[in-house]
């Protein structure tokens, strides 16, 4: 069979990439374009008619102070969560590749939180903060303790804490792969050349693991920016709507307050912000990648 013809190549592409492309088109591209169209309407989410309003939704979104506060809050939450997730994940990965006893057990153990859905996780931790913590703290101090979820700063702390706990194990796996990909001979060579173990780590292992960092930071940033499930089940935006993250605000605007078009416009802004942050970070990270 002639393998260099156009039709042959086309058939090959259709066969291998076709199903995926069609699916991607149907479940991502089409809804995205339809969503884009809805941002130009004042649809309430229920009605049969979708009046066209031009850019009014974008104007409303830009002047919706609650949305920008939520977005700023999400940025702060993401910064803290991303930093701590990655520090902890890296430390755990180092620990479970350094040859401690039962390291496979630990790897599995640290990964487990990631297998629990965000909603369940939120309820479990809510119980821990609201009841267990309060009971223990009251017993220790002798005075009635306040649940951290009931205070403004406390609720944010809890969200960050739970996210770190949830994602650190997952990112750990990527770092573990990174550690294993650096061959021992390179580290040995560095040691023979007079490096201390920490110097070898800093100058040999970490630069070679750069792609793991890029991946982990990208994954954690994008996940943190669109956090919704933990937000919903752990704090529900309380107290006083001070823990409403951007995604929750978008949901409320679109469905609870029945401003579908405006919610959709805000979702688009969130998507653009998230994409810019994620792509910039990957570009910066990729630049300095080295190979052994």
């Amino acid at each position, binding site marked *: 069979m002639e393998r260099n013809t156009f039709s042959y190549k086309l058939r090959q592409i259709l066969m291998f990439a076709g199903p995926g492309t069609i699916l991607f088109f149907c479940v991502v591209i089409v809804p995205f374009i339809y969503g884009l169209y809805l941002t130009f309407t004042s649809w309430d989410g229920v009605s*049969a008619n979708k009046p066209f309003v031009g850019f009014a939704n974008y104007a409303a979104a830009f002047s919706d102070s609650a949305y920008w506060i939520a977005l700023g809050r999400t940025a702060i939450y993401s910064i803290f969560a991303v930093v701590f997730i990655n520090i902890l994940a890296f430390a755990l990965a180092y620990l479970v590749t350094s040859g401690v006893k039962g390291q496979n057990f630990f790897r599995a153990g640290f990964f487990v939180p990631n297998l629990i859905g965000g909603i369940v996780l939120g309820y479990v931790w809510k119980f821990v903060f*609201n009841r267990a913590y309060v009971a223990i703290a009251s017993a220790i101090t002798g005075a*009635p303790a306040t649940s951290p979820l*009931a205070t403004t700063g406390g609720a944010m702390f809890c969200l960050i804490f739970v996210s770190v706990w949830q994602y650190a194990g997952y990112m750990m796996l990527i770092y573990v792969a990174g550690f294993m990909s650096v061959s021992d001979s390179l580290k040995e060579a560095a040691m023979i050349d007079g490096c201390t173990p920490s110097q070898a780590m800093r100058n040999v292992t970490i630069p070679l693991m750069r792609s793991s960092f890029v991946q982990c930071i990208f994954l954690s940033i994008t996940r943190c920016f669109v956090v919704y499930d933990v937000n919903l089940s752990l704090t529900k935006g309380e107290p006083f*709507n001070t823990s409403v993250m951007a995604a929750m605000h978008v949901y409320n605007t679109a469905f609870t307050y029945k401003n579908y078009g405006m919610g959709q416009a805000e979702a688009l802004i969130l998507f653009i912000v998230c994409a810019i942050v994620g792509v910039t970070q990957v570009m910066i990270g990729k630049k300095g990648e080295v190979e052994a």
Partner: protein
Amino acid sequence: MKKSTMKKLLVAMLSFAMIFAMAACGGGGSDSGDAASSADGGFTIFNSKMEIQDQFEALAKQYTEETGVPVEVYYSQDTVSAHLATKYASKDPYTLNMVDAKDIYSLAKEYGVDMSDQDWVADTDYAISVDGKVLGFPSSIEARGIIYNAEGIKKITGKDFDPASITTLDGFKALLDELVKGGMEAPVAIMKEDWSLGAHYLQQVYEEREDPEAFVQSLYKGEVDLMKDEKFNSLMDTFDVLKAYNKDKASPIAAERDLSEQGLAEGTVAFMFGGNWDFAEMKKYDYIGGAGMMPVPQNLQDDYTGKLVGGGSKFFYIDGSENTSAEKQQMAKDFLNWLVTSDAGKTFISDTCGMVSPFKSNDVACSDDLGKAVKTFADAGNLVPNYDYDPDDHYSVLGAEMQKYLADQCTREELATAIQNYWKSVTPVEH
């Protein structure tokens, strides 16, 4: 075994696995009832009261046995309007839809069938009409007030509790002090949920006056000074007293609804602001009896003293879009009539579900203690009507402000200013 046979076997197994996985995925999503059109020859009902879903299905079965008309009852955990929106988007709406009063003004206004000619209309004061057409069939009456547990109070004071004896805030406070002295350290529970504080408690400020509509309109225009408003101050004075005796006073925002309901059911808490729907929660615990409802005690004595706030709740409308045939619409109408006139329907509402029937001809006793109390107020004409035209984000935005006030994070002046500023900032709801 030959290599090619192995391969074939592997392929077969893989495809089975995939089909199975897909079937499993499909099964997971069926709770929303994508088979709404499957009631061939019959009609479909959307139920938005989760706690009566089992009973409702049993009723549908009974109805089919009696009349031969197939009925299917669906429930969804989604927000009601969001769920119905997806059904309309897929051109597969339910024939009969149970929604909240607010939704009648939006959904039923657009899709609902005019039921003005139905016999039951004359039998109730709680149907909703929009533009002269009766669109909403009330399934029950719900009212808000202070829930009490007379048994719990009696245990401390040693006397029978008569709710009618509490007519002022001062009298209420005296009883609370007596309870504290008797050993019930914190006789009050306050729900911190924004819908309870915002849409139920604060809402009374608009509702307990002669012309709520005019008051809300002047709020929109920014003409109201709440700090000078008698009703606002009177209700907030009561709220201050509730706060002072709150069992979660140390951390009111961490209060959990189920613990409060449990306390109320078991008599360790004497009072909580709520509504007759709370009984569904209370009876899950070791309920000791004695629950009832009384008006929110205020020192301001006016036309609303001695009344609960409430009215019809959970309304049915019949879909009149082109997706539902006239035949199905008629079936739904027949069903609603059956629900009002037949013994089975009456028993279902009042006894099986413990709801307060909004129909005068329903003489079956309500099986639920809070419902009984509401029924007494309703029969005596002592219900202040609901105001149903708040902006959609009202409960959330002002609920958060009420939470701040509950947690002593703001003064009454600041709360009043926040409420006034909110109303000035929103677009008036057309109705």
